[in-house]
């Protein structure tokens, strides 16, 4: 089997290599961190956009929704310009580091968490408004309450964000530079190995990427089911 040239067989052999583990680890670290930041910032931001009334709110909502479709390469380019030596944030020397990749992915995921949480909170508010105002609940308290009551839908929003972060290649390629052992992720490695003709490694990485994505979604589904079971077990 070792001397096989079938890319599928080679892919199986590659799955156990330490190089692969390193790449998978970096990919997960970057994407999960970016999603965590985008959740912590984006959920309250989206909720605020739903509940606070201010001039330009409608326009801002449209912009945030539109930003969900930002092309990753454009984000990569903009973050590159910001972080490059001559850019406004050049002094921090972040370009071609995992931090730069996290920044770029936060920019990609933040519109998703913000736009989806805005929708979730707005729908809940439509239902709750009279009751909460009757109770004397202020806007900030209402925001926290709606985020909590929308928790199931918000898990889905976070998953959508993770899907975007873990699958994109354009932004991390540009700001990370796809440097071996430093900024090489699953997606950039797949792009590189495919162009080099090393289909075995590319396929193995593709399989791992899809397995990771599936596992994260299964885990989230189990968590949600567990919550629901606990809620219903008390009936």
């Amino acid at each position, binding site marked *: 089997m070792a001397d096989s040239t079938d890319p599928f067989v080679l892919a199986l052999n590659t799955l156990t290599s330490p190089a692969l583990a390193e790449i998978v680890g970096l990919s997960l670290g970057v994407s999960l961190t970016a999603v965590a930041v985008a959740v912590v910032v984006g959920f309250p931001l989206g909720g605020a956009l739903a509940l606070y009334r201010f001039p330009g709110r409608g326009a801002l909502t449209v912009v945030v929704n539109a930003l969900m479709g930002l092309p990753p390469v454009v984000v990569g380019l903009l973050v590159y310009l910001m972080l490059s030596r001559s850019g406004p944030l050049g002094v921090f020397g972040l370009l071609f580091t995992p931090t730069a990749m996290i920044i770029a992915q936060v920019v990609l995921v933040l519109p998703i968490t913000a736009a989806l949480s805005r929708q979730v909170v707005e729908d809940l508010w439509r239902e*709750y408004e*009279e009751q*909460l105002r009757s109770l004397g609940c202020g806007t900030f308290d209402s925001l926290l309450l709606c985020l*909590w009551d929308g928790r199931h839908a918000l898990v889905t929003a976070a998953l959508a964000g993770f899907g975007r972060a873990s699958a994109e290649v354009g932004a991390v390629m540009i700001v990370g530079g796809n440097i071996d052992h430093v900024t090489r992720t699953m997606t950039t490695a797949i792009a590189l190995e495919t162009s080099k003709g090393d289909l075995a490694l590319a396929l193995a990485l593709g399989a791992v990427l899809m397995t990771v994505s599936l596992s994260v979604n299964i885990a989230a589904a189990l968590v949600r089911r567990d919550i629901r079971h606990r809620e219903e077990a008390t009936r």
Partner: protein
Amino acid sequence: MSPMPPILPLRVDGLCYAVHGKPLLSDISFAIGDGGCTVILGPNGAGKSLLLRLCHGLLRPSAGQVAWEGPGGHDAAMRQAMVFQHPIMLRRSVAANVDIALKVRGLAARLRSIIVAEALDRGGLTALARQPARLLSGGEQQRLAIVRALALAPQILFLDEPTANLDPGSVRQIEELVVKAQSKGTRIVMSTHDMAQARRLADEVMFLNRGRLIEYGPAEEFFNAPRSAEAQAFLRGDLHW
């Protein structure tokens, strides 16, 4: 809880409410004093729900005013509560639905847990305390909505058709809660389409038609000898529009 200065009487003066220039309530004036139960009657579209919401402060009048003239009137919003026709249940447990109402008003956790237990006991909901509120039956949900409102120890409770679409057993349980609250000093103002219920509960009747206050007086007088032709037609079931 320490006794609060009363917010009543409630004085409504020249109250108008219009949407896109279309008047829905016109020139309504009355005063509601301490104690008793006022039932708001009138055909669909008369403006009963609007009037309750305007009194409760959920809507701003287009003209006229709603004034709480008691010594505690400046703090009126915190001393009143409302129950809606369709109970609004938060996506939490039964107990948490009551708890959050108290938390919003800044009560300490230890005090809250005592009040929550009392409230659930009052509504016969203790066994359901940890269930998600949205899985309760319609009658249970409305009972929860009422004990949640009463947990705030309101001086006045507004109820907007609280027993519409409920079975007779649930209606009776909810009326018992309302009567008990009233006997403990909570002023009741409710709208209903259930004439038998109005006769059971009302001390006073407020009769609205087409956005105008037609009659306001003792219930007995209204049911036995309505003054206006509209009220007479309404009681006969002949009032259409």
